[in-house]
């Protein structure tokens, strides 16, 4: 043992020294090779990495839309003009072409012929049926079944025709299929567990690209599908690169390591700088989300609509956008962007008017106490405001609103939490006082707002829906019910204008702004048309090309 120890000691010392010296010399600064702009590939940089490549299972809109757009197709797409255009469907079903029955309940969809999966198998109605069956399968961890739960009967008429009977007419049904891409029956039906299938890591789709390789945490490489049914994509290779730090990603677009910056986009304080970078093009794209202050109408402070409106009009909304978002976001007075076809242009911005707000609170019986805070029937006008912790812009808004409200005798405490906490039961079980939150409309970009504003959609009362503010108004209920069955666009517009008017008066949620994203790309990249109706920057990836 003693002998072993003597030898081992020297050996250990020498070995350690040699290993350290050998490693020390390795990573020296080495000259890099000059890389010319590759005109047959595009590098799209995002701060988040997709974890799901099966389009039915994705959870992170934005980044997981890239594999979806590259490898899969839906029955129809929403284009940048706000119109549905056929993709795997041969035509958009309408009443005029007989695709939708007169009562709006039966939908008949003809499918494109000659489409092939990237493994060569033919695409048929069986694939659409299987996709529907997977969506309603309770064992599949799918993000939403909205719209699909209304299908009473699904029938495969022939290899290229399907027919769906709905339990009631539902105009936004088009959005349900636009948002769900078709998966292959011949591969997935054999899998024991849809959620953990090996297919989810090596997907096969009908889309313009196929997955060539993936380096976890770094990037995914897609190659052109030469047999794509809408014609081969113009760029041969798409690289989806993950750079977690937003500033570093911005630097990489500047240095040419990334051609297109998507998802979180350019930081707001760099928009002016980004627009001046040589050989790069900066542009702003409206995003589907609208940021609100959510008032929990179930709490005693917020039961009275007059109080909610007073709190709303006391805030300096426009100032928050100018000072904190550097004017990047556009003020909206509704749950829709001002550019949405159903937006009510007659709404007038009541903010900021602290004098009127104070008067309204006085009239509502909330009097200023000795401590400077208003109270009524023993309840103080004190509450918390929560959002995801660590988002400086939102914290800035909260601080501004806190000051605004303090001036009218209202005390707000900022109580931010990690995303997994604040958007969990704290929100879904309506435990919050107020939230600062950005949400998109509920069914694609359709103006329907049933899930958020109908009294039968309050989860703490009925166990379903996402009316987390617990708002109840019989007229809004009636209007929302009428809105999803009315097929005439002008009549629908009037319905949603009235919904917006009521929400504007009663303020269950105070709209701040329609969100926007600053994108930066190489000037030579063309036809990457921004689309405010979808969360996906790559919605038309097959049409992108270099000048």
């Amino acid at each position, binding site marked *: 043992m003693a002998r072993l120890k003597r030898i081992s000691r020297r050996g250990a010392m020498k070995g350690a020294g040699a290993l350290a010296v050998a490693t020390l010399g390795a990573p020296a600064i080495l000259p890099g090779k000059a890389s010319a702009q590759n005109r047959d590939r595009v590098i799209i940089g995002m701060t988040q990495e997709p974890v799901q490549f099966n389009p039915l299972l994705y*959870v992170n809109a934005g980044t997981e839309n890239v594999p979806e757009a590259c490898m899969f197709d839906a029955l129809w797409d929403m284009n940048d003009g706000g119109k549905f255009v056929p993709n795997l469907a041969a035509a958009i079903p309408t009443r005029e072409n007989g695709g939708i029955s007169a009562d709006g309940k039966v939908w008949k969809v003809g499918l494109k012929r000659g489409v092939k999966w990237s493994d060569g198998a033919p695409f048929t109605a069986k694939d659409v049926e299987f996709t529907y069956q997977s969506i309603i399968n309770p064992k599949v*961890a799918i993000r*939403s079944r*909205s719209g699909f739960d209304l299908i009473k009967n699904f029938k495969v008429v022939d290899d290229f025709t399907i027919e769906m009977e709905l339990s009631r007419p539902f105009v936004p049904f088009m959005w349900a299929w636009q948002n769900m891409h078709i998966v292959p029956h011949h591969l997935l039906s054999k899998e024991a567990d849809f959620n953990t299938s090996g297919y989810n890591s090596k997907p096969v789709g009908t889309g313009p690209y196929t997955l060539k390789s993936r380096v976890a*945490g770094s990037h995914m490489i897609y190659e052109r599908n030469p047999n794509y049914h809408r014609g081969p994509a113009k760029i041969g290779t798409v690289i989806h690169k993950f*750079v*977690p730090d937003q500033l570093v990603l911005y630097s990489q677009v500047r240095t040419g390591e990334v051609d297109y910056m998507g998802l979180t986009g350019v930081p707001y304080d760099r928009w002016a700088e980004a627009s001046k970078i040589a050989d790069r093009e900066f542009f702003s794209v409206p995003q589907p989300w609208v940021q609100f202050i959510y008032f929990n109408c179930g709490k005693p402070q917020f039961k009275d609509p007059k109080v909610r409106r007073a709190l709303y009009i006391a805030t300096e909304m426009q100032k928050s956008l100018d000072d904190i978002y550097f004017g990047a976001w556009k003020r909206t007075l509704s749950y829709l962007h001002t550019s949405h076809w159903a937006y009510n242009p007659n709404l007038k911005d009541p903010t900021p008017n602290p004098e009127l707000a104070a008067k309204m609170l006085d009239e509502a019986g909330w009097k200023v106490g000795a401590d400077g805070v208003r109270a009524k029937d023993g309840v103080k006008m004190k509450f918390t405001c929560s959002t995801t912790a660590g988002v400086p812009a939102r914290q800035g808004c909260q601080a501004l609103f806190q000051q605004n409200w303090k001036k009218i005798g209202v005390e707000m405490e900022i109580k931010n939490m990690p995303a997994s906490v604040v*958007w969990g039961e704290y929100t879904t079980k309506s435990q919050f006082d107020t939230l600062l939150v950005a949400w998109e409309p509920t069914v694609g970009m359709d103006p329907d707002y049933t899930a958020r504003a109908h009294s039968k959609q309050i989860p703490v009362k009925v166990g379903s829906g996402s009316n987390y503010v617990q708002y109840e108004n019989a007229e809004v209920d009636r209007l929302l019910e009428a809105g999803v069955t009315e097929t005439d666009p002008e009549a629908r517009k009037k319905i949603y204008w009235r919904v917006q008017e009521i929400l504007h008066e009663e303020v269950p949620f105070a709209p701040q702004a329609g969100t926007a994203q600053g994108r930066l790309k190489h000037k030579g990249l063309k036809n990457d048309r921004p689309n405010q109706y979808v969360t996906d920057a790559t919605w038309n990836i097959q049409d992108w090309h270099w000048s």
Partner: protein
Amino acid sequence: MLHYVLRRMLHAVPLMIGVSIVGFGLMHLAPGGPLAVYTLNPTITAQDIERIKVVFGLDQPVYVQYVKWAIGMFTGSWGYTFFGGRPVLVVILERVPATLLLMGSALSIAVVVGMFVGILGAVRRYSVFDYLATTGAMFALSFPTFWFGLMAIYVFALQLRWLPSGGMYELGAEGEILDLLRHLTLPTMVLALVIVATWSRYTRSSFLEVIHQDYIRTARAKGLRAPAILFRHAFPNAVKPLIALLGVQLPFLFSGALVTETIFGWPGMGRLFVDALTMKEYPVLMGMMMFTAFFVIFSNLIADVAIALIDPRIRLG
């Protein structure tokens, strides 16, 4: 020696079980959960949430979930990720090489440079070099790593354009060794800077303690040359606390560096941990915790054995 190693490994079993119970319990006690990513979807219903809970097995009592997970671990099945449905072991192992490379390079450089600076500082105490090294170490330890990272990117990638700002390879050049070294340089330097500072301080104080001992004075009195005194007599004694320090730092080879990997987009374990934590990916978090716990125990065992090999006075067992 063998008996000692076996005994320590047996002790590790209840320790690992304890770590897993505490970790699993804390993770489920913490507010929030993996379903929050679904609730952000405006059209999801309470029934949908309940359905997904069942699919993920989150509807069962925590102790049942733990037992199922523990049986899986024991039988070699680490479970599947909630999001992506991929085997947890595969998800972890595919990140290990990148982390091992980054942390291995940074730690090796830092240990060699840190020890050199520390020894020189101790031998030439209160010299200009010593003051510079001390000030530099305090500077490196005082500034956050992300600041160094962003500065390095700004200077070397954005302004000078000598080195890439992030990633592991130039896209399309996967496997090229020179390209890899170029990408490795900045994150390694940033990480090594902080570790060098730590190692130089430890080394300096350890050597200072040793070189003032009687036996060193005796060696000097015998007329031995300075290098012989330093390396034959002082080094083996001064290096023992440093081996213990190495034992503590070795697990980082596998656990990764959260901030540095995020700043430089390095596809390692640190990034995986941040992503898993954000989404509350319980299976991945538990897998990573067990993986790291194993290496903490293993590294400390290696350090203890190494100290025993170096110091004949220490008897193991």
